[in-house]
Each structure stands twice: as structure tokens, then as C-alpha cells.
């Protein structure tokens, strides 16, 4: 029941990698901006800082083959040298006025989202755009109060002041447009044409509130104009606009190894189009070794996460392969290549679909970068056309579960990436081999040093989920089994034994988990240590099972012998009964001890958990 999909790749427009490389190298250059990521609560988010007028460092613009102007709009009133435009094409992406774009900063992992409100070329032939910003919820969390935002909701900046908008040259060192973004306004304002359902499905983000950058207020009212542009332009467009298809796009950053890693690509490939044929532009290649994806998840049997996933096209351009099939390299030991996993899902109708989870592995080798080993979150959506599996992956936002599309999406939080754990299979893995029974594997693993014990998991996790968690977070294929609870295990603390592929893997995993913190959904950091298992008790009988030493065995009648070796109730007038009752008492006492201990431990944990500022809510 596994279908292997081979996806085609269409080379992007830019084939001149060399030229791009030099231009891209600007990201590698030390970035000027200081990101104030986590002190953002006091200030108005990193936006503030970046909008001080920093000297722009531009690369050579005029000779760029990737830039071309679109429709002209008019000449500037004051300065005749200024020419306004309605659109331009850059890197193969057509950006028009009032489009929403991703702007990436070199050291930020998450792109900013802004709406282009003005495009012009100055007399000095500098190409500029003015962008009004959208705020992510995490950036305004301080002022949110009780408002609950949807997963992919943004806030439009309004008012006057820093952080409202920026005028940037199109090609900018610190910040560049990396792609188009689909933001739909769901406000019930009368001036806003209500979006259709399919618009909502294709939307990357939605917004219905504004954030006044001066008064720091969040409101659902839209003022008449923002940044001197009428508010109607911020709302949805009237007609169903045929936006040009653009191919994945600004992958931009294929970093050379030593560079500070730039969060990278966020290319939107889905384009809204009212017509039927939604074509995903997600054209990727699968190398033949990836064919086996089909099997894995199915054999796991538990994969069917029919979540709606929305996949961002990560299309870093691999520098080596400029043409033809772009190989998505898996995370290799050098750690720079982004990786991607394929997943097979079982849908209701038993057709397996391949859902691509564009995980962007932003693994930078240098330890200095903050991005470190964060796994980029990706949006994916499940393809709906079940029939056409061999074709290009369809981005279809039809929710196969039928739940509302909004809830399904998880937005990248800009402080630290939330990794959603879904069935994860690493390339090259194969579950065809019959595995030894778990017991033996444990022993073997202990000898080899590949056994790790994970603690503080949610006790209701299954073994497969633990494997997935380790897979996603640590990017390693492991086999895991939850430790079964018994009468004296803490019901809040789940443990699992995990067997890694090699002892180095195990070592690195342990040290990683020790130094950094992997937080699980409800505020639990995962604790790891070397696993040791006890040898099974040699059959020597249990303390408490007494035998009278002096009775010779043969004196015992046949029934007596049988009685000992099987089972019976004790009768109340025997010594046995009294002793049994004593044991009972001891058992009860011990259960009370455990209860007390667990309660105390639970209280301690709760105390700490209360101090957590941002537990993730599921």
C-alpha cells in the first residue's frame, strides 16, 4: 500500500548561481542588526530596532538580471525624477502593489511580513519599496491581554511611529524580500470583501486586528488610512485576482558552511487562484533512495496522522546542483543541508498519499549562531486529490478531516520554533528487518552504550510517539519503548528507553538534551541519561514466601505440594492467614509511602511549572 512518488523539479528562473552567490554573500557578512529577540516584551519588538534608518548596503542593482520593472504608475509630484510603479519582478517573482511579502533579516529565523504599499525608483536609480508591517502575535504578546489569536493570525500595524512601515530598497543587505505571502483579511469591517473559504485555505496568514504602534493598542477597528494609504487597499481585493504563479523562489540562502546561518527560505508557493487547477508549485525531486518512504510509515501502523499540513516550499538552492533535479539532501553530518521528509498518510479511503513535510533543517555548523539546530516549522497541507499521486504534489487546502482550517495550522513562533511532532521517518531507514525481541535489544544496547533513558515524558505517550519526538527533535532514527508503569511509578512522569544507532549518537543526544532544553508540549523538559537495566532476578523466590525448613519435602503429601505451587485463599483460622494479613498491612503501608512521595514530587514540579512564562498550549 505504499506509493512512491517521484516529483518533478522545475528549475527556477535564476540559473546564474554565481552572480547570486556574491549577492547572497551579503547575508553572510556580519549583520548589523542586533536582534533583541527575547527582550522584546519591553520594547515594541525587534521591529523597532530595525527601523532606525540604518545605512543601507546595497549590492549592485543595475546589473541584476533578475529585476525588472512592471507597470508604471506615475511620476512623483514633487520630485520629477521619481517614478512610481505598480509592480516589479524580482527573482522571478512578481510583486505588485499591495501584495504581502516576506522580508527576511539575516539573523532572524522568522521572516517578517509586510504589505508593499509603494514602489518607486528614485532619481538616482535606486529601487525602493515601502512596506507596512504585520506583527506576529509573539511580537505583541505583551499587549495582547486576554485576546486569543488564531494560529496564523497577524496584526496590522497602524498609527504613526516607529515600526509602522519602512522604506527599503528592494535589494537590501540587511533585509530582503524573499517571497510573496498570502495574507487574507478576515475582518468583518464593511469595507472588507469577505474572503471565500478557499481563500482562507490558501492563506498563509490572516488578520483582523490592528496594532497601533504609538498607543500600543490592539483593536478590531480599522482607521481610514494607514501610512497615508487608504485602508481599502489593506483589505482583500475585490475580484478574484489572478496572481501569477511563481515558483518557489527565494531560496537564497544556501549558506556556505561557515556563514552565520540565515533563517532562510520561506517561499510561498501556493498561489491563490480561483480556478480549479490548483497547482502546487512544489516541485521537488526525490532521489531514488527516498522511494522507500512509502513503506515506513505504513508499517509503523500508527502513522495516520491525517493532519492537514501546509508545506512551505523550502527551496534552498543547492549550490552544487544548479540544474535539473535538485536533490534535497538530508541532514548530513555537515549539517547544512536542509532536509525534508516524506510521509505517507493513510487517508480514510485507504489511499496513501505522500505528504511532504518541508522541514527546513537549519542546521548551522557554527555554534555561534543562535539558530543552531532549530528545525524550521513548516506548514503542510494534505493533498486532496487522491487519484493523482504521481503528479506534482498538490497543495490543497481541503481539510480531509473536515475541521476548520485555521486550527490546523501552527505558526512559527518567533521566539523559539515549535516543532510539531508527527510521524517522522528519516531517509534511509528501513523497517524491513525483523527486529530482535525487545529484551535482547535492550541488553545489547546497554553493552554497546546506545541505550538512553528519557524521563519526564508525558506518561500517555506511546512508544511510537517517543520515536517520533526523538526523530524530530534530534533528527535521529531510534527505537523506543515506554517503560510500563507499575504500582510505584509516578503517574506524572513517563519514561522511555531509547536505543540509538550508535553510541556516539547516544552520547550526543544525551549531551544535547543536557545542555539545551527540549520542552514538550505542556512545559516538561526532557531529561536524558544513560540507560541501565537491571538483570532479571534469578528465580530464587520472593521474600515472604516462607517454607518451613525442617519439614522434609517427602513428608509433604501430594496435595500439599500442589498447594504450594499453585494458589489458594488462606483460611482465617490459620497462621498463614495471620501472616498474610501482616503482609497486607505492609503492602498498604508501602502504597501510602509512594503516594505521599508522588504527591510531594508533583507539588514541586507544579511549583516550577508555574514559573514558566510561555508553556505551549496544544
Amino acid at each position: 500500500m505504499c506509493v512512491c512518488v517521484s516529483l518533478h523539479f522545475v528549475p527556477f528562473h535564476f540559473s546564474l548561481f554565481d552572480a547570486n552567490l556574491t549577492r547572497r554573500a551579503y547575508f553572510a557578512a556580519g549583520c548589523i542588526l542586533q536582534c533583541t529577540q527575547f527582550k522584546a516584551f519591553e520594547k515594541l519588538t525587534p521591529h523597532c530596532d530595525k527601523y532606525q534608518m540604518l545605512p543601507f548596503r546595497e549590492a549592485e542593482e543595475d546589473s541584476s538580471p533578475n529585476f525588472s520593472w512592471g507597470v508604471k504608475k506615475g511620476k512623483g509630484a514633487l520630485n520629477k525624477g521619481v517614478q512610481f510603479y505598480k509592480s516589479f519582478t524580482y527573482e522571478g517573482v512578481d510583486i505588485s502593489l499591495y501584495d504581502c511579502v516576506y522580508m527576511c533579516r539575516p539573523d532572524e529565523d522568522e521572516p517578517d511580513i509586510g504589505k508593499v504599499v509603494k514602489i518607486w525608483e528614485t532619481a538616482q536609480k535606486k529601487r525602493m519599496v515601502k512596506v507596512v508591517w504585520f506583527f506576529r502575535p509573539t511580537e505583541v504578546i505583551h499587549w495582547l491581554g486576554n485576546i486569543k489569536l488564531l494560529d496564523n493570525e497577524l496584526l496590522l500595524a497602524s498609527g504613526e511611529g516607529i515600526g509602522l512601515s519602512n522604506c527599503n530598497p528592494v535589494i537590501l543587505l540587511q533585509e530582503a524580500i524573499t517571497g510573496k505571502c498570502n495574507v487574507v483579511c478576515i475582518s468583518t469591517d464593511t469595507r472588507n470583501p469577505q474572503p471565500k473559504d478557499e481563500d482562507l485555505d490558501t492563506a498563509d496568514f490572516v488578520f483582523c486586528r490592528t496594532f497601533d504602534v504609538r498607543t500600543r493598542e490592539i483593536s478590531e477597528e480599522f482607521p481610514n488610512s494607514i501610512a497615508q494609504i487608504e485602508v481599502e487597499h489593506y483589505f482583500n481585493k475585490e475580484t478574484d485576482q489572478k496572481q501569477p504563479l511563481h515558483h518557489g523562489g527565494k531560496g537564497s540562502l544556501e549558506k556556505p558552511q561557515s556563514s552565520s546561518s540565515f533563517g532562510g527560505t520561506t517561499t510561498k508557493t501556493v498561489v491563490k487562484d480561483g480556478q480549479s487547477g490548483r497547482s502546487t508549485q512544489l516541485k521537488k525531486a526525490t532521489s531514488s533512495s527516498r522511494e522507500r518512504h512509502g513503506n515506513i510509515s505504513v508499517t509503523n501502523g500508527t502513522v495516520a496522522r491525517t493532519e492537514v499540513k501546509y508545506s512551505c516550499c523550502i527551496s534552498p538552492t543547492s549550490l552544487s546542483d544548479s540544474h535539473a533535479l535538485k536533490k534535497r539532501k538530508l541532514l548530513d553530518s555537515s549539517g547544512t543541508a536542509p532536509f525534508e521528509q516524506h510521509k505517507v498518510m493513510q487517508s480514510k479511503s485507504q489511499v496513501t498519499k505522500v505528504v511532504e513535510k518541508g522541514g527546513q533543517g537549519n542546521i548551522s555548523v557554527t555554534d555561534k549562531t543562535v539558530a543552531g539546530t532549530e528545525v524550521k516549522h513548516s506548514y503542510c497541507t494534505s493533498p486532496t486529490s487522491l487519484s493523482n499521486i504521481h503528479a506534482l504534489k498538490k497543495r490543497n487546502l481541503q481539510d480531509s478531516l473536515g475541521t476548520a482550517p485555521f486550527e490546523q495550522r501552527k505558526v512559527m513562533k518567533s521566539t523559539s520554533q515549535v516543532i510539531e511532532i508527527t510521524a517522522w521517518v528519516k531517509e534511509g531507514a528501513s523497517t524491513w528487518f525483523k527486529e530482535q525481541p525487545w529484551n535482547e535489544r535492550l541488553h545489547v544496547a546497554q553493552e554497546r552504550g546506545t541505550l538512553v533513558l528519557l524521563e519526564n515524558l508525558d506518561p500517555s505517550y506511546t512508544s511510537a510517539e517517543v520515536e517520533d519526538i526523538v526523530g524530530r527533535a534530534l533528527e535521529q532514527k531510534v527505537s523506543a519503548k515506554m517503560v510500563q508503569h507499575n504500582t510505584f511509578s509516578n503517574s506524572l512522569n513517563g519514561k522511555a528507553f531509547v536505543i540509538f544507532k550508535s553510541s556516539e549518537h547516544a552520547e550526543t543526544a544525551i549531551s544535547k538534551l543536557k545542555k539545551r532544553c527540549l520542552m514538550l508540549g505542556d512545559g516538561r523538559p526532557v531529561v536524558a541519561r544513560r540507560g541501565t537495566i537491571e538483570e532479571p532476578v534469578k528465580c530464587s523466590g520472593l521474600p515472604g514466601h516462607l517454607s518451613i525448613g525442617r519439614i522434609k519435602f517427602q513428608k509433604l503429601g501430594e496435595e500439599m505440594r500442589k498447594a504450594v505451587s499453585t494458589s489458594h485463599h488462606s483460611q482465617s483460622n490459620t497462621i498463614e492467614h495471620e501472616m498474610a494479613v501482616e503482609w497486607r498491612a505492609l503492602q498498604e503501608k508501602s502504597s501510602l509511602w509512594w503516594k505521599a512521595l508522588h504527591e510531594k514530587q508533583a507539588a514541586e514540579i507544579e511549583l516550577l511549572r508555574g514559573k514558566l512564562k510561555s508553556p505551549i498550549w496544544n
Partner: protein
Amino acid sequence: MEALMEEYAAFEDKVKRTIYIDNLSPLAKESVLRAALDQFGNVIQVKFIRSYLEMKGTACTALVEMQSAKEAKTIISVICNSPFMISGMPRPVRACSAVAEMFDDRPRKPGRKIVCRWLKTSDPDFEVAMKMKLIIRKHAKEANFLLKRQLEEEEELAKEQSESLNAIYSKYELIEDVTKSGTAIRLAKRYKMRIADVDR
């Protein structure tokens, strides 16, 4: 999706029908356990729980799946009310109803989302999380210690009982000897006391 939910529902049902038995002797084998509980109902499956983390000397445990939840409940109440011994006396076994976490091969709960994230060191939660980790470790050690103490207590009780058992036994032997050999009767005659008639 439905297949998943069915599977999960079947699993939950199984959990309800399963008994968790504690304080088992390592000598008790599956057949013994089965025979023991067969008196009460239909035993479908017996599975021993391998404990990897506990020390030597702790009792074995097992999960027994019965045919119906009612049977399971009856057994549990019976075992709790009067001491039931399997493969050795006088330490009785303990039974309680099973919970899902006791099974290590359970299916995924459908519709569950797990998220996790790596914390950056500058995240304010990082400190808290590190503390939590330390506390978890401490808890694990505490649990270990408690287990050890429990084992010690058990062994102590066992020793006490063994001693008293032996003492009682020797007393009985003595009496038996005396009566058997007729010493008691003769002594009674001598002292003109009546001796209760003992049916032989």
C-alpha cells in the same frame, strides 16, 4: 482515521478488562497464574511486565487480561478482601485494575498533537526548565531510595515471620511428639488431670 479510533477503542476496552497483579513471585509462571485466576473467569492473556529499572528483589508483576470487565472487577475485589496466594505463602498477591500506561505497546491516541521545542538559552524559561530537569533527577533518586527502603522492610518482615513460623512450628512439633509418644497421657494419669480427648 476510523481504523485508528477503533483500534484505540479496542485498546481502551482491553485496559478495562485487564488486571494488574503485583507481589508475584518470580517462580510463578504463566500457567500457574492462569490456573490461579481461571477459577474466577476466563483468562485470555497473561503478560509479565519486565521491570528494567527496579532492583533485584522486587516482586514481579503481570497483566492479566480477562474476558469481561466484570470478571476483572470481581477478581480484584476478591483478592483485595481475602488474601490470595500464588506460588507460595504467606505473602499474598495484590491486584488492581490496569491503566493504559502499563501497556507498552499501546496504539496512538487518534487526534493527538504533540509539540515540542528547543529552548534557546536566552529564553527566560530556560532557567526554569533546567531547574525542572534537576528536580526530575532528584525525584528519580528519591524514588529509588524509597524502593530500596521498601524492599528492606519487606525482607525484614519476611525474616520476622520466618522466625516466628519456625518457633511456632517447633512448638507444635513438641506437642505432637509429646502426645504421640503417650507422654502426655501418662503424665495426666500421674497428676490425676483430665486430658482432653484428642481424636486421632
